[in-house]
């Protein structure tokens, strides 16, 4: 296999968001600053797929794919329609943590109640984790790579990174990249509950001294990634640039982060190397910040290791969005790009008293800033770490 002669620069020219904090960019950004009622399960309120899918199409797709289709369509609309490229060089990288488990759970009920002959013939294509990517490609006629990474809660970040790599390497000229998740079922909620991962109070409070679990959520975000020169030549509005990315594994424990956040720190450093930046160049961290005792401690330690104590402002939007699992990293990348536009760092809602053990500058109220290179982290069960470095246009 050959390495590209000269990696190309990758910019973000469109964004689409479906989230409990708001659907559409204005609602989402406003939602990130708005206090929410405690809720252990955070669903996208009143989501209606009908602007994008007929009733029959919607019936044959899982809700996570509805979100994927909606976010991708909104992202393309945001960038002014499908860029005029050879569609065999247009790709999709759409991650998910679990895929269509809601459909699977429904069909398990059908099997028990009515027997194997009544299980829907659409079950497999609805459940498969790549259904979102496949449906988005099918819809827009994108005939380049269409892939799904499933690295649990790091899938969104890894997918944006993988999509950007396809553009940088010259394989694709445009890529729809992001994540989609809708996997809150009675069984998955029970499973997260018995492993004591979820908040008992329904408050998501990243880095707070009282944090004790995450609020499970759903949603999707899709970024339109394009080669920089072509995007500029057609006068595209540019939200920012994907400067670098990295992926590592803790190889420590199937769910617990490595002590001292060493895996996370290694990942952030590799991402900085990839971006050809030093720690001192980074102006903000968009944290994974789930509100679990272990994640936030490990991540704060890792951030301190890389950037020094209180070295860089840290926001987690999960106080509002909850934890969108495989969508989280994509939603957070979108929030970073919007923080460039609005020249403001989003607050870590839900958090009132930062854990004094954690030596990080947690952004508790919206903070005006001069946009600069920002690192966005995601960490998934399995020990998967992903870091993305985004810079303003």
């Amino acid at each position, binding site marked *: 296999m050959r390495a590209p002669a000269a990696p190309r620069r990758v910019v973000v020219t469109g964004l689409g968001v479906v989230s409990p904090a708001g659907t559409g960019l204005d609602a989402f950004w406003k939602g990130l600053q708005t206090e929410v009622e405690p809720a252990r399960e955070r669903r996208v309120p009143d989501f209606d797929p009908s602007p994008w899918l*007929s*009733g*029959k199409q919607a019936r*044959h797709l899982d809700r996570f794919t509805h979100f994927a289709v909606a976010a991708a369509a909104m992202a393309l609309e945001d960038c002014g329609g499908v860029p005029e490229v050879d569609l065999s060089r247009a790709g999709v990288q759409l991650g998910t943590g679990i895929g269509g488990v809601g459909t699977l759970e429904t069909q398990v009920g059908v099997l028990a109640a009515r027997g194997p*002959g*009544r299980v*829907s*013939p*659409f079950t497999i*294509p609805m459940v498969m984790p790549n259904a979102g990517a496949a449906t988005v490609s099918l819809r827009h006629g994108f005939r380049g790579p269409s892939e799904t990474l499933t690295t649990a809660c790091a899938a969104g970040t890894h997918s944006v990174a993988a999509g950007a790599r396809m553009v940088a390497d010259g394989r694709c000229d445009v890529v729809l990249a992001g994540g989609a998740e809708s996997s809150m079922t009675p069984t998955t909620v029970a499973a997260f509950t018995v492993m004591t991962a979820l908040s008992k109070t329904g408050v998501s409070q990243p880095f707070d001294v009282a944090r004790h679990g995450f609020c499970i959520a759903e949603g999707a975000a899709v970024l339109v990634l394009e080669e920089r020169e072509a995007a500029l030549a057609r006068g595209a509005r540019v939200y920012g640039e994907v400067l670098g990315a990295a992926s590592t594994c803790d190889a420590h424990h199937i769910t617990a982060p490595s002590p001292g956040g060493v895996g996370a720190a290694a990942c952030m450093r590799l991402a900085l190397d990839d971006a050809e930046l030093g720690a001192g160049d980074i102006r903000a961290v968009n944290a994974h910040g789930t509100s679990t005792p272990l994640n936030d401690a490990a991540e704060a330690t890792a951030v301190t290791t890389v950037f020094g104590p209180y070295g860089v402002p840290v926001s987690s939007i999960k106080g509002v969005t909850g934890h969108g699992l495989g969508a989280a990293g994509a939603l957070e990348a979108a929030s970073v790009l919007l923080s460039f536009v609005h020249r403001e760092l989003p607050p870590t809602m839900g958090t009132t008293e930062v854990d004094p053990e954690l030596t990080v500058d947690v952004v508790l109220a919206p903070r005006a800033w001069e946009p600069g290179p920002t690192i966005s982290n995601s960490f998934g069960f399995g020990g998967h770490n992903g870091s993305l470095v985004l810079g303003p246009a």
Partner: protein
Amino acid sequence: MTTTDDLSQQLLELTAEQLSVAPAQLVRDASLAEDLGLDSLAAIEWGMAIEDAFGISMPEDAMEHVSTYGDVQDLVQRLAAVPTQA
């Protein structure tokens, strides 16, 4: 007693809903694939709904041997074995 007209009407309503098509499209020579947009998975799902609605059991490959809406009407008629209207 169920008559062929009842059966036709019930099949028409069920099919319009299952395939998301207008009842007016459901004429005897409507092509399942071309006119009604039926693919192999949707055909299986439709077959299940027909079995449930009419309490019949179709041979496993039954939906592979029909190409028009009229073929399906005849198939259901035969399997349901309802008496023809006097």
